């Protein structure tokens, strides 16, 4: 940021406080965000979409008794903010009483300390810098007669939460991300991605190289006979599974409704002891906010602790309803989804990917999945496709490239057969803007149910 320009979280806090001063209710909460983002998108070896956005937003929650109303706007003038506050009040006045509403959260006395993260300078990763990175990624494919597509993006957001109980939380979150798909004319393709808080660390050349190498190796892919195989899942593939676990299983609402396997197996030794899944926005490698959208500090939560389903994340409403600690995982109000983990991680193991592959006589290596969806939330039965680099493993080595294959598999069942966890973790960006910090996994059984070829 240039000298004299407020940091994004300072601008967000100022905006939140302006709206807060205009709101009228027994209790008031204001969530404000001030964001700049840019995305350089390439396909067919040229930048075809190059976009940037500056936006502010304010969301006001007014509480009258136990009745709540929420209104939002991206207009930041005082008149617009006043209209927004009035709409929230009007909604609260019309809402029925909600005896289960515990009140807005109060400041936490002993909050976990947030890690110091480098301030993110979007101006230093401008359109020219992003174009340089994209060009470097593209060159790795183009020089080998391949076609590259992907993104180089960056965003910086200041987020602030102010409420009438005394919460004043503000932080700046910044991240850069790059993705690359490399394709050859015969249908081979490879993928690589990178996410981090420091765009100067983006390894454009090596990222482009990784994807291009995979594309070259996956040329001439053959169909996989449907069946159950041992698999090695690269971090990008693991990230999809963890993302769906978070969505289906680790939130307090679905736990309460007994739609989560955690509710059915809490405390049981369901998985091998080597498996620990946490949500940890405060991890040095994570990029999440140190507080949730109610301004409550995010706590590290061991969701699966040494193989035992152990906990779910909460917000103020669900913590009170379940009689549990508020873990600081609220989404913006009103929130029909309940609290969700946004910074999931699997604790690392001690295996290298080569060691995992070496331990499999006949199996499948998966670079990433595509278009995964839930068929059954309780067992986390997912279906989706492999994409951009799946290989047959024979006698401990990658042998033949495989055409895209469909799987239909319960993640809960698959993790019961966890064989090995990678020692190196990667931060993978999710579609929803969150991230997961995950290693590769070796699983004893994965059900492939079809093939594109």
């Amino acid at each position, binding site marked *: 940021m240039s000298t004299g320009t407020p940091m994004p979280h300072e601008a967000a806090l100022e905006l939140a406080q302006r709206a807060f001063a205009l709101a009228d209710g027994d209790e008031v909460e204001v969530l404000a965000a001030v964001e700049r983002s840019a*995305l350089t998108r390439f396909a067919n070896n040229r930048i075809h*979409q190059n*976009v940037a956005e500056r936006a502010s937003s304010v969301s006001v929650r007014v509480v009258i008794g136990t009745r709540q109303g929420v209104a939002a706007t991206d207009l930041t003038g005082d008149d617009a903010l006043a209209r927004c506050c009035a709409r929230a009040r009007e909604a609260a006045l*019309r809402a*029925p009483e909600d005896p289960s509403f515990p009140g807005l959260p109060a400041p936490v006395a002993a909050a976990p300390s947030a890690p110091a993260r480098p301030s993110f300078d979007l101006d230093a990763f401008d*359109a020219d810098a992003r174009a340089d990175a994209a060009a470097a990624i593209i060159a790795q494919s183009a020089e080998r007669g391949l076609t590259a597509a992907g993104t180089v993006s960056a965003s910086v957001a200041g987020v602030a939460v102010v409420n009438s109980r005394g919460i004043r939380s503000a932080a700046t979150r910044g991240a850069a991300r790059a993705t690359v798909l490399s394709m050859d004319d015969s249908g081979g393709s490879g993928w690589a991605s990178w996410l981090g808080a420091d765009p100067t660390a983006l390894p454009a050349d090596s990222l482009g190289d990784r994807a291009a190498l995979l594309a070259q190796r996956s040329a001439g892919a053959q169909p996989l006979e449907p069946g159950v195989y041992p698999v090695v899942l690269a971090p990008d593939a693991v990230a999809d599974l963890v993302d769906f676990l978070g969505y289906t299983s680790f939130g307090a609402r679905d736990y309460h409704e007994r739609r989560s396997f955690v509710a059915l197996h809490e405390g049981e030794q369901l998985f091998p002891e080597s498996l620990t899944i946490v949500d940890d926005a405060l991890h040095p490698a994570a990029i999440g906010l140190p507080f949730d959208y109610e301004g409550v500090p995010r706590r590290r939560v061991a969701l699966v602790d040494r193989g035992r389903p152990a906990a779910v994340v909460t917000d103020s409403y669900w913590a009170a309803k379940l009689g549990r600690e508020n873990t600081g995982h609220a989404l913006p109000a009103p929130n029909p989804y309940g609290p969700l983990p946004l910074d999931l991680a699997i604790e690392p193991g001690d295996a290298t990917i080569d060691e995992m592959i070496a331990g499999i006589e006949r199996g499948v290596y998966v670079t990433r999945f595509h278009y995964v969806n839930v068929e059954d939330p309780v067992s986390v039965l997912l279906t989706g496709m492999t994409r951009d680099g799946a290989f047959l493993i024979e006698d401990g080595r990658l042998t033949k490239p495989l055409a895209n294959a469909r799987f239909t598999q319960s993640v809960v069942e698959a993790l019961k057969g966890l064989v090995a966890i990678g020692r190196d973790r990667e931060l993978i960006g999710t579609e929803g803007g969150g991230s997961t910090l995950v290693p590769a996994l070796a699983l004893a059984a994965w059900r492939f149910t079809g093939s594109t070829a």
Partner: protein
Amino acid sequence: MRDIVAAALDAAEVAGAAYAEARVVSERSERISVRTGRVDGIASSETLGLGIRVIADGAWGFAATSDLGAGAVAAAAREAVWLARAAARTWQAPVRLADSPAVRDEWHGRCEVDPFSVALDDKLALLIAAEEALRAEPSVRVTEASLDALSVRKVFASTAGALIEQSHTEVGAGIVARVVTDGEVLTRSYPNSHGGQHVQAGWEAVLAMDLVGNAPRVAEQAAALAHAIPCPSDTTTVILDGSQMALQVHESIGHPTELDRVLGDEAAFAGTSWVRAADLGTLRYGSEHVNVVADATTPGSLGSFGYDDEGVPAQRFDVVREGVLAGFLSSRESAAAIGRASTGCARASGWNRIPLVRMTTVSLEPGAWDLDALIADTDDGILMETNSSWSIDDKRLNFQFACEIGWEIKGGKLGRMIKNPNYTGITPQFWASCDAVCSAAHWQVWGVPNCGKGEPMQVAHVAHGAAPARFRNVQVGVAR
């Protein structure tokens, strides 16, 4: 709004844009939801902003801002030009656009009763009554009722002289009943899953859904699912209801015929297509019963408008005619790449997004069958209703769908209820196996308000007209 787009275009030209188009979009929305006896959300929002897209040095750039002050608007225009020039470093040839007339016009969607004029008390009363009616069934553990309203007003202008003002209103509503046993969730929704039915209309459309009147049947079916049989693992005949057919069309015909996907511009995220540009007019997509039309003029549909977000007039055209590929959904740029005129499908999800090739109302035309007669004509198979899960590969070939409910068909009659049925297939083989489509009496336009595409992600509101249809030799009961 007109002044803002004019100022943006002026600033872009001064900055060196060879072409520029600006959109100011104002949206107002409201969402109310009730869940298991509790009003869990009453929320409204308003948004207003500018997006400006330019061509400079032969490449595209786009910038958006919610600050509509004169300085911010000019800065956005300059940034768009800068972005275009940075992109141009990777271009070998300049952007080419298919010709389109510079139109000056207005278009307004139909809406009888403005949903924002209806008292909040009335909306809450409707949802609470519907949700309570679901809870009358004792085994139903989780209940939901929701209502969405959206009002959009936008002004588009270009340096070619276009000036178009459009507005429309959308509503959506639905109810859901879930029976949760240990280890199983059984769901029934009405009028559709994933938020209900969504249309371009007013409050009158919400009332016409009769959520309260349908709630007892929905809850009863959810309860009955707890005693239903699992889906057999088999290869058999399936009849899909209209709402599931809408999603089948969406995923396996709509997306693969988006010309930007065909040309590779969406490769890294949404994927490409099994269809090639050269296949136009020759590719056998399905059986002779398969006739698919894209129609942005369909009244009351989420996929309707007067002009797309490049200012191209709304059109109706064939996508598949008698089973043969007949057209692509296209923008000015993608159409120019194959030497054709734009089919008017460039749509942006808001002021802060560029237009992408999107579906409009992409519909399977009705056939001649009555549904009862079609079931009676089916010796052995499964009738499936209401989507619960969807997945398809990056070329739109290998798909798998799951539905909320099914029924055996034995000897031309519906038999036992089936829980969580699913089916899978390969797009051209599946459509080639279509041997019957039900008549116009069973045909309905289904709104799809959650179509994701692009980076940054855009969520488009599209629609599909469909009637129940029959397919032979379909693999069902995958991993059941």
